[in-house]
Each structure stands twice: as C-alpha cells, then as structure tokens.
C-alpha cells in the first residue's frame, strides 16, 4: 500500500539530510506554498511535501466525504505518509489548519514526531464567548463559503474545457499545470467547513512534542490572542511573534520564517 499513499497524496521527497521534515499545506492551496521555505532546509533534512486528498495534484478519486469531514481524516493522511515512508523523528511543519492536523497526528503517534512547527495555528476560528475569541462569527464563515461558491462558478467554467480534454485549445493544459491552488469546488467547500467549524482546543494539552508557535503580526485569520492561547495550552511550547503580517509568512516573509524555524530546530530539546 505505501506506493498507493505516495501517489494518492502526490508525495514529493527531496533534500540530502536524514531527519525528515514534513511540510503540510493549509486550506486553499497545496504543497507549492512551501517553495520559498522548504529549499532552505534541503541540505540538512529529508524534505517530504504532499497534497491532502482533494487538494493540488492528489488523486481526487480517493476523496471520501466521511473521512475528510473532520480534521481527523486529514491527520490520517499525515500518518499514512509517515508509515508509507517509515518516517521517524519527524519535524512537522504545518500552516494554518495543518498546524492542528499536526497536533492531532502527533497525539495519535507521538513516537514518530521530534518537533512541531505551527505557523498561524488556530484550534477554533469561531468565537466562543465569554472566554474564547477565535476572531470569527459563524455568519463570517458562511460569507466565505458564498464567496468561494461565486468564484468556483468562474473556475468551473474556466476548467471545464480542460476537463473535457478539448484538443482545440492545447494551451489550456499548460495553463492548468501552472494554476496552483486550484481545487475541486465541492471538496474545497467541505475542506473550508472542516477547517473553520472545527474545535480542537482540548487536543493542545496532550501535546508531548517540543512545539514552536509562529504567530504573525496582524493576522486576520489567527489573531495574536489565539496564538497566545495555543502557546498557553500547549505544554512546553515556544511562541514567536513575527514581524511579518498577514496569514502567510512562508510566502510573504520566507527569510524570517526560515530563520525562526532554524533557530527552533537548533535549540536543545526540553
């Protein structure tokens, strides 16, 4: 089965190091989002990149609505890959929703993990008054779903000729291969629901792996208060607030991101 998993999740292995560094992309994109960060670790680590089933160039036929209705299903993708490549001592780097996917996977099989790097994590996006501020109301997420629907009308129309293998327009194929982060609209919608309606706050306290929390300044998706919450609830974690703003420091500020991760990896454990 290992080969199936590698194809299913479009797993790419690179780098000349021994210790594996597993990069997990967030909602809305695919493994391409790591291309400004991952190469910096290629000399010292074995780089493992992949697309979740339903994202990027994964096998869409393997998509199972029940399995991927919650983050547990995505954590199983991570563990499947770890088993398929028999990875041990894994440095897990997860962005956004993948931060929590990594937490779930590491709690499931802590022996496989050496360290967790959580970029812009949020255990719950929706406010839970009076004690928890996630940053969003339910209606905000519903607005996002509608915006996605609107855009996928256009995308679906745009992709349709390619899907129908229109031989008259070969340039479409080339354009598609460059079209990163394009996703099946139905799956993208379900991924959005699994992400933004999740609540994994209780998983944090079970983490037994050294963890780095990278918190951006002025992150609309994971505000500072959420990063502090994650740091407070995760035993033995390190919180670093970045100069980078927004939610995607690995794309907007790759140098800072790389240096903070490197600093964490070189720090002694415990």
């Amino acid at each position, binding site marked *: 089965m290992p080969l199936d998993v590698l194809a299913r999740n479009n797993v790419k292995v690179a780098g000349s190091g021994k210790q594996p560094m597993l990069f997990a992309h967030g909602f809305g994109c695919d493994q391409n989002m790591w291309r400004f960060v991952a190469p910096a670790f290629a000399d010292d680590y074995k780089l493992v990149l992949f697309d979740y089933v339903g994202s990027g160039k994964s096998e869409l036929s393997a998509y199972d609505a029940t399995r991927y209705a919650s983050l547990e299903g995505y954590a199983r993708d991570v563990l499947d890959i770890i088993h398929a490549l028999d990875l041990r001592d894994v440095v897990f780097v997860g962005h956004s929703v993948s931060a929590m996917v990594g937490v779930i996977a590491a709690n499931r099989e802590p022996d496989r993990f050496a360290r967790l790097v959580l970029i812009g994590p949020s255990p719950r996006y929706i406010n839970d008054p009076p004690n928890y501020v996630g940053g969003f109301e339910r209606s905000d997420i519903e607005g996002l779903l509608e915006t996605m629907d609107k855009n996928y009308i256009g995308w679906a129309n745009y992709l349709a000729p390619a899907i129908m293998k229109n031989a008259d327009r070969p340039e479409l194929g080339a354009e598609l291969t460059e079209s990163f982060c394009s996703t099946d609209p139905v799956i993208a919608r379900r991924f959005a629901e699994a992400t933004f309606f999740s609540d994994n706050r209780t998983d944090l306290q079970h983490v037994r792996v050294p963890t780095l929390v990278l918190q951006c300044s*002025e992150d*609309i998706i994971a505000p500072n208060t959420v990063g502090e919450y994650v740091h407070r609830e995760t035993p033995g974690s390190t919180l670093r607030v970045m100069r980078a703003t927004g939610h995607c420091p690995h794309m907007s500020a790759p140098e800072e991101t790389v240096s903070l991760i490197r600093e964490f990896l070189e720090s002694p454990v415990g």
Partner: protein
Amino acid sequence: MAETRAPVHAFELDATLDALPCGFFSFDDDGTVAAANSTLAAMLGYDRAELVGRQVETLLTVAGKIFLQTHLYPMVRLHGKAEELFLLMRRRDGGDVGVLLNAVRRERDGRGFIDCALMEVRERRKYEDALLRARQAADAANAALEERTRALEAANERLEEQAIELELQQHQLQEQTAELEAQSEELHAINDELLERSEELERAKNVAEEANRAKSQFLAVMSHELRTPLNAIGGYAQLIDMGVHGPVTDGQRGALERISRAQRHLLRLINDVLNLARIEAGRLEFTFEDVEVNDLVNSVMPMIEPQMAAARLRSIAAVPAGLTVRADREKVQQILINLLTNAVKFTPAGGTIRVTADSVDQHHVLVSVIDTGIGIPGDKLASVFEPFIQVDASHTRQTEGSGLGLAISRDLARGMGGDLRAQSEPGAGSTFSLLLPRA
C-alpha cells in the same frame, strides 16, 4: 491594528490610471496599500490619499479577508496572477461592494507588489446569485436523486438476493418432492405386497379354520358313533354280571369287571373329545347368570371328597362370602371339578389342596386351586393347556385321563370372558387360577 501606517513604499500612479473607468490599487506582501486610483476611492467612499498606507484588509468584508489570505494572496504569490476573482469589498460606510478583480504581482525596486484592477459587479452579481442558487438546487436535487438511486439499488440487490434464495428453496423443495414421490412409490409397492400377503394369510386362515371345523365335525360325529357301541358293550356286560343270561362264574365275573372298566375309560375319553370338538366347532352355548363363588365351591367340594379321602389328602376351602361372578354355573363347576381332579391326581398322600377366591380388580374375580403336588417344570408350563398333553408320560398310567381336561377348561373359561392360568414350582406344588368376570 493600525488604521493607517506610513506609506513607506508608496508610489505615484500614472495620471492615466485615474482616468480609467475601473478601480485600481496596489499592495505589498505585507498587505499595505501602496497606491490607489480615484475611481476606487470614489467606489469605496474614501479620498484617494486616505487609501494609501492602509492595510488592504480594512477594505474587505470578513469573508473577503479570509478569501484574500487563503486564496487570492497564495495564488498571486505562487502563480504571479489571478483572474476574474469575485471579492466583497467594504465601503467606508460599512456597505458591501461586490467586485470582479484581476491581480498581478510585480517587483518594484526589489519589492513585491500586487496590482489589482477591478470593476463593480451589480447586474452580473444578480445573475450569479441566481445561477448559484440554481446550481445549489440542482446539486441538492442531484444528491437526493443519487440517494434515492442508491436506496433503489440497495432494495433491488436485496430483492435479487431474495429471488436467488427463493429459487434455491424452490430447488430444495423440488428435490424433496422428488424424494418423497420416490418414497411414496416404494411405500405403494410395499403396501401392495402387504395387501397380497394379507390376502394370502386371510385365505390360509380361512382354509385352516375350515379344516379345523371339518376336523371338529368329524370328531363330534365319530364320538357319537363310538359312544353307541360302547354303551352297548357296557350295558350287556352289566346284564351278564347280573346273571340275566345264567349263572356267572368267579372267573367270568373278574373278566366282566375288566370289560366294564375299559368301557368306562373309553367312554370318558370319548366324552372329553366330544366336548373339545364341540367347543372348537363353536357349538357350545353358555347360559350366563350371577353366581355366588362360595355356592359354586361348596357344590363341587362334596363331589371330590371321596377321591381326596382315598388319596389321603386334606382340603381347605377359603372363599369370602358375597363374591359373585357372571358365568355359566355348570361350566364353572365342570372347570373346578377338572382342576380339583387334577390336583388329587398329582398330589402325593398327606398333601393339601386349597381353594381360594378373591377379587383381582373391579371387573374380575380369581378362583384358585392350590396343591402341594409334584408341580410342573417351567418349560412345560405353557403347554399344559394344549390338547392331549400330560406333562410326564410316566404318570399316565397311574393318573388316567384323556389329556383334554385343561384344554377344555381353558376354552370354557375364555368362552365366558375369563381365562385359566397356571403357576408352578416342581416339587412344591401348582396353582391353577380361574379368572372370571365379576357380576
């Protein structure tokens, strides 16, 4: 979050951009707006100068902000451009503006900027809303249809399974039916054979019964034919003995005595044969009445007393009063005399003969004759009721008899709805029990 920040990397726009009918703005990787045209400013209700230096997110609805971070920015950053994206922007007064946006990422002085050109969508948005609703309805209908198809398929599968099962059961039934038919034929054959044998047996039985009747008739006739000359022999011998035909010498008297004794023996023998023949020929008639057992026993005991005295035997009759049977008085007497005579014959001097009677159950009375005689061996006990049987041939001489007494007695008992049974222990004596219906 700062509403404004120093537009460190702001740049001057070409004046022509201001004249365009569509909105334009540019922001850097940090999300800081570096430039905007007056068309956009008017669209959102800002002065153009107010837009520069703001975070781009302050110009978006919450959904628009998330979409920017999860889709628009990664696409533009990785792909270099994004086309025809729908985005909800937020006006200064809080209202939403739906825009269609193209974005390109450009480097200026070593810094990345995202340049966006956009136009407001009003009419198109309405159509898209309708289109979206229609598509969602279609998706829902499709899902429902798929669900129903799945249910139908499942039901169909179940039906097919049941059909297969039914077919199997039918097969089994057919096999069982065939087996049963085979068995039935076999049974018919056996039955036919049994019927044939039964008919054969019936025929054989009829033949046997016919033969038996013929035999009995023959015996009855013969007995009569024999009795007449025997009576003549006895009568004439008696007349000679009486001296009717002249004086009789002592030697002649002894001879006459022997003739008479032989004649009596022969006559008794013939009488017994005649009785048995009559019974077996079914010609015997019974006269039933209520008879007190005590009376019966008392009436027969005196008849046997002389023989008992001669054989030096003791007799004891112990019959409770009030015990009544439904029977033919004479036949019962005949049976009892026969049993007592037998007891006397086979009991050595000094022995005892007892007669008892008791009710066995509500419907039967048992009258027993118990002796202390020589007894009957177990293997012979069953045959004592056969005609012409005497257990020990050596006794024949000292105990004369036809050998028909017990056979006749049992036939008589059965003819009255009763029975005759024997128990014995060689050397200790025998018990003959007469079972009779209670009155």
